[in-house]
């Protein structure tokens, strides 16, 4: 049989997350975010968190909920645009912010999971992002050295997951969830549908269970849409 990663609920999954820890939180905007786990972190009232997440949610949803309670000390993100409370805390100096090019953020998470401590990328060369970083020219083009990111916990959201921790994501909810799942010392996956092993096609698994330490059946997903754009039927 496969290794069983199932925990009873969000409380058990997150029980040992502590003040001051570094968390990776999957999602892009509000798409594919671990809603249940974020709500539980709010409830637990853990403080001084460093959150690595592409975005910072909106005022009343996603990581915005943790920001409102001032539980986050530092955000490591690529874009944090839709959040007034974030802006207030950042401008007042309450919140540290480390902005990273989105591709470098993704690659640094992947590197963290893949045992690659550092790599060269052209992104950010010649900008303030490159300050203090090693520059090296390859094929006539300057690159900067970026380092791997790791986290005490990676918290991701998947569409379907099996008891062995294998994960499948729905459409663009894949985004940062997969790379972050690989980079947590402990990775927690909440899923819309927890299925028995043997249900998911071995060829179609996005995140193999080896990267996931805990999985639980999530509930009451709101799946809020940030920018509802539609066209008229002609």
């Amino acid at each position, binding site marked *: 049989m496969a290794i069983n990663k199932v925990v009873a609920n969000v409380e058990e999954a997150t029980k040992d997350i502590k003040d001051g820890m570094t968390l990776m939180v999957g999602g892009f905007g509000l798409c594919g975010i671990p809603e249940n786990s974020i709500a539980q972190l709010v409830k637990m009232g853990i403080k001084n968190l460093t959150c690595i997440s592409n975005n910072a949610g909106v005022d009343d949803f996603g990581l915005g909920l943790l920001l409102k309670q001032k539980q986050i000390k530092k955000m490591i993100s690529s874009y944090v645009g839709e959040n007034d409370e974030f802006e207030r805390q950042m401008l007042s100096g309450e919140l540290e912010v480390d902005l990273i090019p989105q591709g470098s953020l993704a690659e640094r998470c992947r590197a963290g999971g893949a045992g690659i401590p550092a790599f060269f990328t052209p992104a950010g060369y010649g900008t*303030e992002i490159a300050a203090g970083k090693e520059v090296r020219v390859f094929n006539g083009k300057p690159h900067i050295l970026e380092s791997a990111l790791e986290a005490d916990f990676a918290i991701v959201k998947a569409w379907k997951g099996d008891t062995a921790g294998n994960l499948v994501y729905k459409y663009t909810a*894949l985004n940062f969830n997969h790379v972050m799942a690989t980079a947590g010392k402990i990775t927690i996956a909440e899923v819309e549908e927890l299925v028995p092993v043997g249900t998911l096609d071995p060829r179609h698994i996005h995140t193999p269970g080896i990267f996931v330490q805990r999985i639980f059946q999530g509930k009451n997903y709101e799946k809020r849409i940030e920018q509802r754009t539609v066209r008229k039927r002609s």
Partner: protein
Amino acid sequence: MLDKTGIAKRIAQELRDGWYVNLGIGIPTLVANYVDKNITVEFQSENGILGMGPFPYEGEEDADLINAGKQTVTLLPGASIFDSSMSFSMIRGQHVQLTVLGAMEVSQNGDIANWKIPGKMVKGMGGAMDLVASAKNIIVAMMHTNKAGESKLLPECTLPLTGVACVTKVVTELAVMEIKDGAFHLLERAPGVTVEQIKNATAGKLVISGEVPEMKLD
């Protein structure tokens, strides 16, 4: 003089059959509406889509299917979905033939500034730094001057840079310019715009060779 739609239409003329294209937020997004029916291009969205389609019909929005601007979108036949690291492998690895994005400033050297104004709230660069550092062909869509009437085409950028020596063309409400050899080379005038107007609105070095044709838009 062009409106935003006009800029998008003109940029759409730059697309070539078989290209993969990444469109930024704002005017660049509009480019998708004006692709020549005789060519096939596929749109890449850096949050993880290739083969992105138009907005969904009302009632068919899926919270799990958005573009990099967080807008609900659809998939065209032949589309694929992938994670953020693979998405930027495509971008960094120069598999995307064209990137179109907005800017606050562009220099005659091809430097671009579009992510940060000192003293103002910084929202972040998103994928822009990866895109401009990687793509071989980068077209900037923007207004020629800012709200104060100052040129956005400069000898050197004054704002913090997004990337250096990377912009290949700029399309504004006034003109199409190619950037090479440390100068803006005027290729086309917008309908009704004079070379003089473009000169006056361009602070960076502007090279004008012979007669400058007026652009043709359908």
